[in-house]
């Protein structure tokens, strides 16, 4: 299958390894990944902070860029949710944006949805001999309703030991500009999350959103906990021949 990648601005700029892992994984499974180069950002940050007009422009750019693709993979739960839940609301009723958004929105998928629902695989042939905790991110869990798809994928990874994370469903406190606007509360939430992660004894914390991982990972590093953070795609791309670093 030919799958269009929406790598997202944060992944593109700060976490290119996630995008590369997605490409390796999809190609290993026999699919073709394409990267429409006109893509930039879904507009989530602008939208969530109250800058609606800027978000609208980015939404228009997005729907134009991906109009001709049947399946769009966004390896970021919150960006996928932004497009699926909010794009239609961004355009006025009956507007061209509203119609285009309604068309493109259901085709935008998170990695775990693409693998489990569309490609029909849970065992992707990965090998990752480490103890892993999974954090189900708010948008992945509540807006996309990913359910147990990510953990099913992780359980099928050879060598991987999945450990239980206490208060897993609680927000890590990142929340985009929330982390900057309410630094004390955000940090307090992050510290509680990091403490729960460290208590699992895991070597790696996994999620489907690098923004949350950046926040939790930065806290874990400051606490010198020794726990690394990794996007689900990186673990699934890992094999014996090409182990994830």
């Amino acid at each position, binding site marked *: 299958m030919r799958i269009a990648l929406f*790598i997202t*601005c944060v*992944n*593109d*700029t*700060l*976490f*290119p*390894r996630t*995008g*590369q892992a997605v*490409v390796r994984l999809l190609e290993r499974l026999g699919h073709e990944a394409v*990267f429409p*180069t*006109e*893509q*930039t*950002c879904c*507009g989530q*940050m*602008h939208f*969530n*902070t*109250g*800058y*609606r007009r*800027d978000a609208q*422009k*980015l939404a228009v*750019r997005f729907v134009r860029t991906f109009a001709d693709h049947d399946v769009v993979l966004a390896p970021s739960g919150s960006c996928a949710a932004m497009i699926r839940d909010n794009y239609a609301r961004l355009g006025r009723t009956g507007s061209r944006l509203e119609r285009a958004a309604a068309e493109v929105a259901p085709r935008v998928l998170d990695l775990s949805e693409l693998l489990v629902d569309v490609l029909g695989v849970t065992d992707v042939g990965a090998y990752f001999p480490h103890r892993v905790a999974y954090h189900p991110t*708010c*948008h992945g869990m*509540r*807006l996309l309703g990913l359910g147990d798809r990510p953990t099913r994928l992780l359980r099928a990874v050879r060598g991987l030991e999945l450990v239980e994370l206490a208060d897993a469903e*609680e*927000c890590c*406190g*990142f*929340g985009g*500009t*929330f*982390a*900057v*606007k*309410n*630094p*004390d*509360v*955000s*940090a*307090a*939430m*992050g*510290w509680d999350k990091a403490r729960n992660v460290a208590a699992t004894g895991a070597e790696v914390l996994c999620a489907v959103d690098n923004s949350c991982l*950046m926040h939790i*990972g*930065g*806290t874990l*590093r*400051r606490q010198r906990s020794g726990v690394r953070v990794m996007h689900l795609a990186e673990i699934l791309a890992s094999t014996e021949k090409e182990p994830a670093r």
Partner: protein
Amino acid sequence: MSGTFLGMPAFPTAAESAVADPQLRHNLRKATRTIRRTRRTVVGEVDDWAGLRAAGAAIKDRTLRHLDRHLERLEEAVTAAGGHVHWAADADEANAIVTGLVRATGESEVVKVKSMATQEIGLNEALAAAGITAYETDLAELIVQLGEDRPSHILVPAIHRNRAEIREIFLRTMADWGVPAPDDLTDDPRALAEAARRHLRDRFLTTRVAVSGANFAVAETGTLVVLESEGNGRMCLTLPETLISVVGIEKLVPTWQDLEVFLRLLPRSSTGERMNPYTSMWTGVAPGDGPREFHLVLLDNGRTDVLADEVGRQALRCIRCSACLNVCPVYERTGGHAYGSVYPGPIGAILTPQLRGTASEVDASLPYASSLCGACFEVCPVAIDIPEVLVHLRERVVEQGGRPGERAVMAAASWAFGDERRLGWAQRTAGGARSLVPRRLPLGPAVAWTDTRDLPEIPPEPFRDWWARREKEDGR
């Protein structure tokens, strides 16, 4: 809204000290987690909670759409049952009406059953200014009043206090207000409740005027409904000669039958009970039974403005169950006082800026007092999409000027994202300067970040450059 909240700092500042208070954090964490757990259990027992929730939302929406008609019907029914209806456009008007009604009785003391509407309008302060003392009779509300404190939770206003603190407050203050606390008072919950009961008993038997709120007002019959756990409310509603109820205009349900849905939704969502211990209902006056005079003050105080906002009006569905507070990770770490309003937590963050407007610092900061995690929406028994309203109100704040620094950052991001070449250029610039970015920053907006977290390392090559290189190498 209540004068006690005027001049509050913006949420992030108010939250700072709360977050740093380990006792407060401990009290809140313990209390909210306990309620959360019981709520989850009893909600799980209902066969079709989702259907019930949808019904609750639908009834409220339907009512709000024709609120004017239902209000007129309520007025007719209350009047026909021997009550008096007063209309108050704002807090001052409502306070003047209640003060006048109490004065007319010749009394200078009133008992109160917990009412958010009267807190919203600052009734106790207004009465005090007129020489009338208001005694709170709800246990948690009594603790707040005796401690000269402010409520911090919709349902458990003294949630921020633990047992030891409550014992200390009772011992220190009860004697000044009436029946003193026993000298050997312990911090056993039962002993504390008993001390409060004795303190209040005398009050109920001697006070001739009561002020209440209401959870619901049934338009077709003119019936008012109060749900409570202690029975103190029932004493207030039945013993005094004059009863004055201050009720927000959104509390209406059209028919008696509509109540059924809410009597199931509310206790389970709020206290985690299958049914609440005391449900009191009264319709006008009944000779020889209960108060001889009944006044209903219908309060607008910004509610018609909220009604006019298509997105924001869903906040008026709220039945004040406080479930959203109990699941909110932000509330759990800041407590209610940081919200600078009678309505704290997620519902406060959307209701307060709508009722008061977003002109002041604190009101403009409230729509941002959320990480948009969505837990509040998930739990709300009338399906208020709180994150949606938060973002909607953020747009309003931005439209009225926003923060210049933030504006500049957003404009720069917009510019870079407006075209993939600009984005690539920005990425390469950042990548080129990667060795210059330290783990901790001394200045700028990212300081707050690096105070407690490390920044991620900027990679040498963004994804798009890696992709282009790969395409070229593959000779595609």
